[in-house]
Structure formats: structure tokens, C-alpha cells
């Protein structure tokens, strides 16, 4: 069966800095593929290129059988490739439910409807509520998004990505800034989501990575230095030197 996401020889420079260096990844449907690496390894840049925010300098991105390398952001989202952001970027003055409903609306055809009350349309509100339920936020649905805690923002971020009914999620550090309890909750949510979606997970939280990942790719300076099953990566000396060793020192 062909892979859902195929990245071939992706490359990107910003001036003198090589952000992505001859990067290739293949992710079959249903897999949770983690991408790890030290800071500056180009993980967010990778997601940005996959979602269409930046164009790569060279290389090819294939999704669900089509070449999406040059496809603009809204079109990729329409194909079923959704992304969450590392830095929270929400509609802070709208309600939690409005935030997710907007994500649903984006995939419900054009929005040149000027008359019917959008907040009463079940075809928008129901899927939004469902997505909020999946991340456990529905009790907060009528609050303005600005009233939520940081951890809840990350959950809302995830709910918005889910609202577009994607086939594949690109998650950029969903655990960023979460405390132990919130992290555990996020891991549990992701474990549930794994059953129905393909996920590319960029993360620093190694516990979460090893708990969830089917496969792990390690990036250093934009280049893949290792890729394989979690146990292989854990035992890989090169990876240990470059990255995991650091991590263990940090986590103590």
C-alpha cells in the first residue's frame, strides 16, 4: 500500500542557514511518526513546508497519492492534511466553540452565506462540539478563548486541527509548556486519536514520544541521522551522542 505521506529529498535554506537538508520520510496510513532532534534541528520548518506555509527550495512532497509540493495552504487543508501550531495562535476574543466552529466552517464549502445565523447551524456546531469532546474541553465551550489556561490552549489547538476531519495531523510540540498532569492527558488523547488518524508528531517530551510513537526519525541540523522503531532509536549510539544524552542530562 502506498504511503500516505511521502517526502523526498526536501531542502530549504534561509540565507546561510540550512534548515532542511536532503530530507526524506515516508509515513504509511495509521502510523504515529515522531520527529525528534535538538533545538534548531529544523523540525518546525519541516512542518511549515509540509503544511504549505513555506515552499521548499527543492524536493517533493506527496500526500494521498498527489504531489502537493506547490499546493497552497488552504488546498492542503482541504485534502485532509491539518496542522497544529507550536506557538498558540487562536481567536482569543471569540468563544472556544466559535474557534473550533470556524475550523469546521473552513471545510464546509464557501462562506458567502450572509443571512442564516452561523452560531445556530448544527452542521457547524455539532462537529465542533464533537472535536471539543475528544480533547475534553466541552465544559469550557462558551468561554472566550482568552480565559483558558495554557494547557487548555494546547487542547483547543488540537481540537481545531481535528475539526477539519483530517486524514493526517501535523502536530508541532503539542506538549509545549504543559505540566505533568496536562501532559498525561494529552498523551491519552493522542493515543485515542492514533486509532483513527495518521500523525506526524514533533516533540521534545521523550516520555510522550516513546509512549506513542510507532516510528521515530531523528533530525540534526535539518538532516536525518536515524530513522526506525523506538527501541532501535533508543539504542542507537549516534542518536544518543547527538541528542538523547543531552535529554537525559536535562531530565536528570
Amino acid at each position, binding site marked *: 500500500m502506498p504511503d500516505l505521506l511521502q517526502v523526498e529529498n526536501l531542502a530549504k535554506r534561509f540565507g546561510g542557514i540550512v534548515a532542511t537538508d536532503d530530507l526524506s520520510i515516508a509515513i504509511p496510513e495509521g502510523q504515529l511518526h515522531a520527529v525528534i532532534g535538538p533545538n534548531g534541528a529544523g523540525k518546525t520548518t519541516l512542518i511549515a513546508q509540509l*503544511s504549505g*506555509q513555506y515552499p521548499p527550495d527543492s524536493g517533493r512532497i506527496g500526500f494521498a497519492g498527489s504531489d502537493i509540493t506547490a499546493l497552497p*495552504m*488552504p488546498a492542503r*487543508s*482541504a485534502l485532509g492534511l491539518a*496542522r497544529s*501550531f507550536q506557538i498558540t*495562535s*487562536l*481567536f*482569543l*476574543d*471569540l*468563544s472556544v466553540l*466559535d474557534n473550533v*466552529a*470556524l*475550523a469546521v*466552517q*473552513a*471545510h464546509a464549502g464557501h*462562506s*458567502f*452565506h*450572509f*443571512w*442564516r*445565523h*452561523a*452560531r445556530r*447551524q448544527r452542521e*457547524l456546531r455539532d462537529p465542533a462540539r464533537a472535536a471539543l469532546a475528544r480533547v475534553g474541553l466541552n465544559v469550557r465551550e462558551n468561554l*472566550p478563548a482568552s480565559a483558558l489556561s495554557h494547557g487548555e490552549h494546547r487542547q483547543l489547538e488540537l481540537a*481545531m486541527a481535528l475539526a*477539519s476531519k483530517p486524514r493526517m495531523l501535523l502536530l508541532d510540540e503539542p506538549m509545549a509548556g504543559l505540566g505533568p498532569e496536562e501532559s498525561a492527558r494529552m498523551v491519552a488523547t493522542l493515543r485515542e486519536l492514533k486509532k483513527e488518524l495518521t500523525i506526524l508528531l514533533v516533540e521534545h517530551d521523550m516520555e510522550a514520544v516513546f509512549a506513542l510513537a510507532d516510528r521515530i526519525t531523528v533530525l540534526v541540523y535539518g538532516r536525518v541521522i536515524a530513522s526506525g522503531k523506538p527501541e532501535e532509536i533508543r539504542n542507537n549510539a549516534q542518536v544518543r551522542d547527538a541528542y538523547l544524552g543531552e535529554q537525559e542530562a536535562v531530565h536528570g
Partner: protein
Amino acid sequence: MSGWLSARNLAVIVLLAALVLLPVYVELTGNRFLLTLFTRIIILALAAVSLNLILGYGGMMSFGHAVYLGIGGYAVGMLAHEGIYSGFVQWPLALSASALFALVIGALSLRTRGVYFIMITLAFAQMAYYVVAGLARYGGDDGLTIYKRSQFFEPINLSNKMQFYYICLALLYASIYLVWRIVNSRFGMVIQGSRSNDTRMRAIGFPTFRYKLICFVIAGTLCGLSGALLANHTDFVSPAMMYWTRSGDLIIMVVLGGMGSVIGPVFGAMALLVLEETLSGFTEYWQIILGPLLLLVVLFARGGIDGLLGKVRHA
């Protein structure tokens, strides 16, 4: 929030009812000046409501909105000058010309944001001002008198002050309803989302430019209607209608009234014009008070009258 019968909603209901009953009061007391004043308030309230669509809900800070007052007004004025008095010709022209201008200016200006957008909308409005001021045939700087108001079929007679008042009021209420439906529709959600976080909107799949442009055109067209009404009200049009400081007046009305609701600008128009009338009764230098007053509102009462009445700014 305390639901339907909050202080603020009561104030709104009282206001709307009072406006309907005003001509009755005028008949009883003979205070014709009040009718003239409030006709003007209603017409400018319509312009302010249209501005709030793009400013309050869309986050597009246009400093050239008064240009549509001029375009709508001059459509009526120029046609009247040429002997065409039919409202059925004048008003559609006023609306289409406004829509077209908004389309072109919007297409150019909406490619920019923030400070650039403010300056560009201001500059284009001034351009229209200079163009019209240069048209000697239509009065140039001195303006153009309108000898006959827009004609429709019997029994509509815009020269009848009471009738004219009610026509303007009806158009205001219709516009408020229209804008209210628009901001709560799917289209309105896109506009509000765009104001809140435009980058995120595009990331989740909305091509926001076209939505903002259409919103801009709708607002301009409504304001063009206001211009046509204004021309009829004053029996006169001049380039001064679109001088950039008039756009400032409209923004003041919107902010003063409260940007978070459709009705807010009506409060604002009333407040500003009544304030003008009262203050100029005290001193001819009333703008010395208005200036710093505005400053204080900006610094301490940004929610406007709506905010003071207790309406929390909800999108």
C-alpha cells in the same frame, strides 16, 4: 450577562422607540429644529453603522469612509444638476458608484495592513475629494445646490420633512437589521475571525482577502446610500462631505458608541451630534473640549457608550 432585559438592551429599546415617536413630539411642541437635527443624526448613524461593519467587526481601520458620503451625494447632485430628478435613477447610481469605488480601493488597500492601510484609505479618499473639487461644472470647491429632491412615485415626497424623517429611519432600521444578519452569518464569522487572527484564518483554509473585500464593498455601498440621503437632506453637496476629517468624525461615532454591537454606532452618532449642538451653545470654541474629551474616551472608556452601559465586548 443578565440576558434580555439588561440595562443596555432596555436603553436600546427605549432609543429605537423614541426615534419612532420623535415626529409626534415635534408636532406637539412645534420644535421643528429637533426634526432637522434628528434626521441628520439618523443619516449619519447609517453611515456609522456601515463603518462599524468593517471597523468594529472586520478590524479594517479605514480612514476614508466619508468618501462614500460624497460619492452617493454627488451621484444625486450631479444628476439633479443635469435635470435628472428620478430617485430610481439617482439612488441606484449612488449605490453602484460607491460599490465600484469600494471595489477598486479595497482591492488595492487590502493588500496592506495596519498603519499603511489607514494612510492608504485616507489618501484615496482625499484623491476623490480633489477630483470632485476640481470639477467646475459641478460647483468645484463651492459645492452644488440641489433644487429638487429625489423624485419617486406618488405619494412619496421627500420634501415633506416628516415623511423624509420616517423614510430615513426606515432605511436605518433596515440597514441595522441587514448588518446584524451579516455579522452573525457564516460570512460574518469569517470577517470576525479575520479581525481576530488573519494568519490563522488563512492557515485553516479561508482565503480571507476576498471576504474582506466584499465586506468593504458592502460597507461602502451602505454609506453611499447615506450620502444620497444626506444630499436630499441638505439640498446641497460639496467636496467637504468627503474631506478626510469627516472620516474621522465617523470613526469617533463608532468608537464613542461602542464597536462591539451593531447598534452601538447609533448611540455614537447621537452622542456626537447632540454633544456638538449642546457644546456649541456654550462656546463657539467647543472643539477645544471635544478634542481632549476624545482623548479621555480613548484612554479610559474604549468600550464606548455600550461599554458604559455594561455590554461586554463579545465578538
